[in-house]
């Protein structure tokens, strides 16, 4: 039998104050960055146009930019995406079929050479933004209600705070490194929520069981026992998820950003399962002792 984790007995709850402080510092950095730098929203949310095109001859980013600037198409983001292949993003405001024509004629490129063209109007962008926020908000509510029914109210608080923690940490990485937030990123956020919740529920499930087994133990102690007992499962599962996400990192483009979000999120998720979700439930129980257990 191979064991990564032998039987452990770490005092997680004792350490949680330090852990929460570290998390809060990271999130604070993220919030500051969010205020001053904001998020790098992709055209899905801001509106705008994206071209992916392959040139017959080699061209440089500077060259493409100069040509576009001459045609009065400015503030483009140009990325190389393959051999002679580029992704050009034109921000909102230049929207219209005129733009596609203007880009095509100025770069002298034909329809066959454009392998991807996405145009999102500003109104649609706003709607997609709204729908995405709504999806995240709804999922929080639904999770909370489900946990409150299957467990107890304080577990729902623990779950929601730890999920919020995961999303905020991921958001921090996105704002600090200015990674593009697109519809796919939102899907990643929701998957992170799903995974992190999985971990947390497994721990809480153990707590639910241990509360019956060790009736005389303190609540903190039961939480510690449960986290330790499920630790090896938490780590094994997160490792397999991690392997999968590493494979997704190999795919270029949007999937890679998705994978980055997943990597960060799943690390944050493991961490929050151990240091945020459990302790929050314990603190809550201590505060409102009568409602606990």
């Amino acid at each position: 039998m191979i064991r990564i984790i032998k039987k452990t007995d770490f005092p997680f709850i004792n350490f949680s104050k330090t852990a929460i402080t570290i998390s809060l510092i990271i999130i604070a950095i993220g919030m500051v960055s969010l205020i001053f730098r904001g998020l790098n929203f992709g055209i899905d949310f801001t509106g705008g146009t994206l071209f992916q095109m392959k040139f017959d001859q080699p061209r440089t980013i500077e060259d493409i930019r100069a040509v576009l600037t001459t045609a009065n198409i400015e503030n483009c983001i140009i990325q190389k995406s393959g051999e002679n292949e580029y992704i050009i993003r034109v921000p909102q405001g230049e929207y219209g079929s005129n733009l596609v024509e203007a880009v095509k004629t100025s770069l002298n490129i034909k329809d066959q050479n454009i392998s991807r063209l996405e145009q999102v109007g500003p109104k649609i962008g706003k709607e997609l933004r709204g729908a995405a926020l709504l999806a995240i908000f709804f999922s929080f509510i639904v999770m909370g209600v489900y946990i409150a029914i299957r467990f107890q109210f304080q577990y729902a608080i623990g779950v929601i705070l730890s999920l919020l923690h995961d999303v905020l940490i991921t958001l921090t990485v996105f704002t600090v490194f200015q990674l593009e937030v697109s519809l796919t990123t939102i899907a990643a956020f929701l998957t992170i929520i799903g995974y992190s919740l999985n971990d947390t529920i497994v721990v809480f499930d153990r707590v639910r069981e241990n509360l019956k087994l060790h009736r005389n133990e303190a609540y903190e102690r039961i939480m510690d026992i449960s986290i330790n007992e499920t630790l090896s499962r938490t780590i094994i599962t997160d490792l397999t998820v991690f392997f999968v996400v590493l494979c997704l990192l190999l795919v270029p483009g949007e999937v890679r950003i998705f994978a980055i979000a997943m990597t960060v999120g799943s690390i944050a998720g493991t961490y929050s399962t151990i240091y945020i979700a459990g302790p929050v439930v314990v603190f809550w129980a201590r505060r409102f002792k009568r409602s606990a257990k």
Partner: protein
Amino acid sequence: MFKKNVVRFIIIGLILVLAGYALFWTIAYHSFSDQKLEDLRTKGTLDKYESRIIRLGLDLQGGMHIVMEVDMPKLIETLASNKTPQFMDILNEATAEAAANEEDFFDVYRRKVNNSDLKLVRHFNGLGFKNEDILNGLEAEAKDAVSRAMEVIRNRVDQFGVSEPSIQKAGKYRIIVELAGIQDIGRARELIQSTALLEFILLKDAAVTQQFISAVDNYLKTGQQTDLAPETRDEADSTVALKESKDKAISVNELLGETGVETGLESEGADTGLVVDEEIYKERPFSSLLRNVDNQIGVPERNVYAVKKILENPGVKKLIPFDSKFLWSANAERRTVQDGATESFYILYHVNNEPGLLGKYVTKASASLGGSGSQSSGQPIVNMSMNSEGAQIFAKLTGANIGKQLAVVLDDKVWTAPFIRVKIPDGSAYIEGMQDMNEAKDIAIVLRAGALPAPVKTIEERTVGPSLGKDSIDVGIRVGVLALLVVMAFMFFYYRRSGLLADMALILNMIFTMAIMAMLRATLTLPGIAGLVLTIGMAVDANVLIFERIREELERGKTVSAAISTGYARALSAILDSNITTLLTALILMQTGTGPVKGFAITLFWGIVSSMFTAIFVTRTFYNWRVERHAIKTLSI
């Protein structure tokens, strides 16, 4: 107990057979050669396959997704008569405000109309007398226009020949068109988006146009330049233009020597590749961008954007004679310039606001090659004939304006503007200027299918070329297989023979998920593949939970069979709770998500559903079988 297990094996076997059947069509379809596909298509049996295979999303197959919306301001403008300045001001203000605040246009318009003393009854007939009634009438008109527009688009797409087009209504004023696997994206776009509003419009006299051009030059020169959309004329921009002109400055003197575009015939050829020279630009900021092409206003391709910007400038707009507007030629014309090089020019036409004749009278339209002897000999043209009412108007129009130019305008683009030489009594007309026969055919299609009942604009478009789609599938499959192998290797390494059991469950899970996708006729997208890959991680989690539990029970000294049953029993609640919450997330994504997110949610959802079956039911069955058959004392876990 043993019998119960036999039942379990039979259930698994049946589901496997069902899944195999569901996937058979997809596997067969993709293994066919092009020849065989063509054979089946001619036999008419290909449908049988196509309706049973896993559908690929537009991002994997290539294709286009277009969301169109009825352009309400334009619709109102088109429906209105007697367009007074007050009426137009309110309309324009509402348009601008709605765009700025990202508000619904009609709400803003309603508010603005109600806050003003505008009497809508003076502008609209037959919609009632009160403003409120007319506003409601306009809204109803727009909704009706959506259904009619869908019909027109469907007609066009059918004639174009796209397999399985999807044309759906979304929201109040929107139409979503999805065309999978089309090769010529540019053509399809034109075909769908064209309003097909055909008009015959008289050109303005050259003198009036010349006056306007000079006025614009003066306006831009005399310190008003700051008005001119500052973002397009900033430092960086003018330096680029300047640098170019210094590199290739050839015809500075020639251009300076000319008084206007109309007479610039000899010199226009020389300034190839030159956007504009700085000095002339200062002197005549507008006309320096223009060239003379066959005594018409030619605009070098690279200047088109700048000229459009100038024409959109509010100050310049005021200079345009009230009864006229500017339209562009549909295609660029290549002209040989002095040193033998060629350059493309778009032609700018100054035409009347009111069309002389509308295309609704056109009864027939067909593409052909111009007859020998005619001016367009051998060129693709579109012949049109009109009904008697149209023919009458056309005869009057041509008769009264001999010697003038009549522009044939389709969707605000001028295709041809021939001089009227004689009165045309029989209502026959033609369009020329198409680049190839395909273009002529497409124009004939849109003319036959009819004009869209209202102006529609594209608010979202996502197009993926077929080769990119193929690349995405390849990458997706490679990554999926890699992830599967890595996870399987890890599970075997860590849990030994039990790990193999989990691996088997994992492969079954992939098969089942794909089978469900095929049976539900769900669409597989690139994010969908990502979702599938992620379920690999999720699916083994259930087995990890169970195995860890069994290990714990074994450590407590339980027998193998007791440890297995306690392990499964104890792990079950955690597996259920965690999977149900993820299913809930996936459901929310399926409901609220659009496009890519939805595709992701679908595979995630069915992947988890099937993983609960494979990871719990299938592995348990095999454990039971091994324990009972072989009465094993130790478990490889």
